């Protein structure tokens, strides 16, 4: 008899070696918009297949879509500006992080927006972002980061890395 159920790998062992610090997924690619749909759908498939929950797969889609959109939009044109997407799981926590080389002109706005978000709980921050978008019809949407926190069920952290790179990390429950 053939089973029609989708297989669940349910194995959180890192794919290379036995080091638990190794990520489950590591991808490096040029900051091109055309890649985002495919990588988002891979993240959906990977989370569904590895952890067996549709809910986590949906959250992964939002986190990956919006973090990659931000990274692509604000990357500079340097040949070293490739993006890195890392997915880790440890205990009951899953972590998505995206490293990029942004145009420095956008950094102050990004830090300010993240700081502002953290003054409100995720739902309040998302509602506030909707209100701002409604009140400022000609400004850019700026819903993405608030959406990641609320719909993705994660907290966001920004870390500076060598060479002018930054890493946005989204961490939440599995």
């Amino acid at each position, binding site marked *: 008899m053939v089973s029609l159920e989708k297989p669940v790998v349910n194995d959180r062992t890192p794919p290379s070696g036995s080091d638990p610090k190794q990520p489950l997924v590591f991808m490096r690619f040029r900051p091109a*918009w055309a890649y*985002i*749909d495919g990588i*988002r759908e891979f993240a959906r498939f990977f989370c569904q297949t590895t952890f067996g929950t549709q*809910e986590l797969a*949906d*959250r992964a*889609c*939002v986190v990956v*879509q*919006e973090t990659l*959109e931000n990274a692509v*939009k604000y990357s500079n044109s340097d040949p070293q500006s490739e993006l890195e997407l890392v997915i880790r799981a440890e205990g009951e926590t899953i972590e998505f992080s995206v490293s990029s080389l942004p145009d420095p002109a956008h950094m102050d706005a990004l830090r300010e927006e993240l700081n502002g978000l953290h003054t409100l709980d995720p739902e309040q921050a*998302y*509602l506030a972002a*909707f*209100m701002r*978008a*409604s009140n400022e*019809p000609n400004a850019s*949407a700026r*819903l*993405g980061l608030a*959406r990641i926190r*609320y*719909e993705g069920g994660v907290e966001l952290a920004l870390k500076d890395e060598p060479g002018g790179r930054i890493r946005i990390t989204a961490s939440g429950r599995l």
Partner: protein
Amino acid sequence: MSNFEKVIAPKLETVSVALTPPATVRLAGTITSKDPSQDLAAFMRSVHQAAIADSLPQLTVDVSALTFVNSSAIRLFVDWATWVKDSTQRYKLRFVTSRKITWQKTSFMALTSLAKDVLIIDPVD
């Protein structure tokens, strides 16, 4: 012919757009382009203006098969709700949503908080 019937649905790569008289718009697929307002804002504005010109009491936007959108697309729905809220000639904007699609649960809840008086959210399975 009503103004609503005169609106032409755009033909787009990842999302299908259909108008069914007297007052239903259906969106199905995904919207994740860099600037979805280029493809859809003018169309949504035309539908809004047609609803007002036809004095429609209610306009239905069925998004239950719109499986994923980015935040720039969510912004289009914020704009639409704001147009109706700020209009002197209001109609009810009814969104048919799917309970099975996560982004719709969270985003239409937030949208409702913005324009309670003019929005109806109608979840289906």
